[in-house]
């Protein structure tokens, strides 16, 4: 299936040089439209319209109740801060989304070598929703002196077989990035587990100065 790309600014999912960018056609009749950046224009004539998401929900781009949004889906390739993107794509759908659009989007991304999981349009999707509170807890434990960063990371690697520990992961991804994500999640969920931790707030303030 042919796809066109409308890009506005740098894409976190498909940075410059990604072969997915080269595979796009410059043709208004392409069956799938991929938006890497706003503004998004719903087009019921397409098989699917894909919108790259950051910390925001898909509903921020299109009205999920509108009939011409049934083929509009969100997606985000998981990427820990500035580190290279993984091959995991979270494909976001509304309850009212057209199943055919979901299948077409999934097929397109899988053909591009991605592992695709479908999820609902909720803040943080799957990964940030699950991981950010864990990183927050690890940072809090570190502040409280539960253990050293090295021992916490070692525990997770040896005890759970993780390739890296929570502290090294959140630090490698960037505390500033962690701040941006947790701030967005906290604004929506309002629960303490998502509140940006002191270290991330400090990193954000330093950047502002």
């Amino acid at each position, binding site marked *: 299936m042919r796809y066109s790309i409308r890009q506005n600014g740098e894409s976190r999912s498909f940075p410059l040089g990604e072969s997915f960018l080269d595979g796009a056609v410059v043709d208004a009749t392409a069956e799938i439209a991929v938006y890497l950046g706003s503004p998004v224009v719903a087009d019921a004539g397409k098989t699917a319209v894909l919108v790259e998401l950051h910390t925001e929900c898909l509903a921020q781009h299109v009205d999920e109740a509108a009939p011409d949004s049934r083929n509009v889906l969100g997606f985000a390739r998981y990427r820990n801060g500035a580190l290279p993107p993984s091959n995991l794509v979270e494909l976001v759908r509304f309850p009212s989304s057209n199943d055919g659009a979901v299948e077409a989007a999934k097929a397109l991304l899988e053909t591009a070598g991605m592992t695709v*999981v479908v999820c*609902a349009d*909720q803040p943080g999707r799957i990964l940030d*929703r699950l991981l950010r509170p864990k990183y927050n807890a690890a940072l809090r434990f570190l502040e409280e002196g*539960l*253990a050293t960063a090295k*021992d*916490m990371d*070692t525990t997770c690697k*040896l005890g759970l077989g993780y390739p890296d520990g929570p502290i090294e992961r959140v630090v490698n991804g960037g505390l500033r990035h962690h701040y941006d994500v947790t701030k967005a999640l906290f604004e929506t969920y309002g629960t303490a587990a998502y509140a940006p931790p002191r270290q991330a707030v400090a990193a954000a303030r330093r950047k502002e100065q």
Partner: protein
Amino acid sequence: MTQKIQTVGVCGAGGTMGAGIAIVAARAGYSVICYDTVEAPLMKTVKQTEAFFQKSVERGKMSTAERDAVLARFDRTTDIGALAKCDLVIEAVFENLEVKRKLIGRLDEICPPHTIFGSNTSTLSITEIASGCSRPERVVGMHFCLPAQLMKLVEMSPGILTSEATFQAAWDWTVGCGQIPVKTQDKPGFILNALLVPFNNDAIRAIEAGVADAAGIDTAIKAGLGYKMGPLELIDLIGLDTQVRLCEAFYPITFDPRAACPPLLRRMVAAGLLGRKSGRGFYSYAGNAMFGA
């Protein structure tokens, strides 16, 4: 210089964790006394230990003479008084504060003053466990991971009254056994469970919230982070009922909302969906195959 440990006792040696700890100690060359209240599980441990070291011989990791020497130092008993000759006793009994506190108190009456008591608790306070004896300075947390004979990690925690000498002696012993210790404060769940239990609950709540199904969540975690197992697969492995017990141990002492038992988890346990051991949890298991539930 830390004290010399020669004989190690393991309480609850009829259980999986106790048996693993006994193997770790025996493999490192210590005389081991396996204690449990009932003979049958102890015999099972002895058989498992013999099989484990036989495999080691077959894999070329030890000679038959070394195997025989290890097994000759491996003893079992249902008489707690036999632990009187131990320099270190590690308890791996049921995860209940009163049970562990009473056991440490009993060992305190039996063992000589120099004996160190290690607790394999994964959630309880070392300080509270030690409050059952007259030598809290000689009680230390030593949390091994399942299966202890294969997993290197040991979370080691001093209680408020644990002496530095005791902690160091237990630490040195652990390192001498080829394990990798990490030091944590005496706080609920130490490091591993303090991070894992709420994380697993969050994964269950994501299902409840309709974010994705179990397979989607596990795939995202594995593909996105390179984990070997997703959280729902892990809960199926450890048992959904075990996850409930962990929540019940954590929430009343931490009041962390993430540690509270998700309603879906309780309903699944009520329905008999306990994970791999019952054949169905977040996934269905038929033989070795796994299907998304």
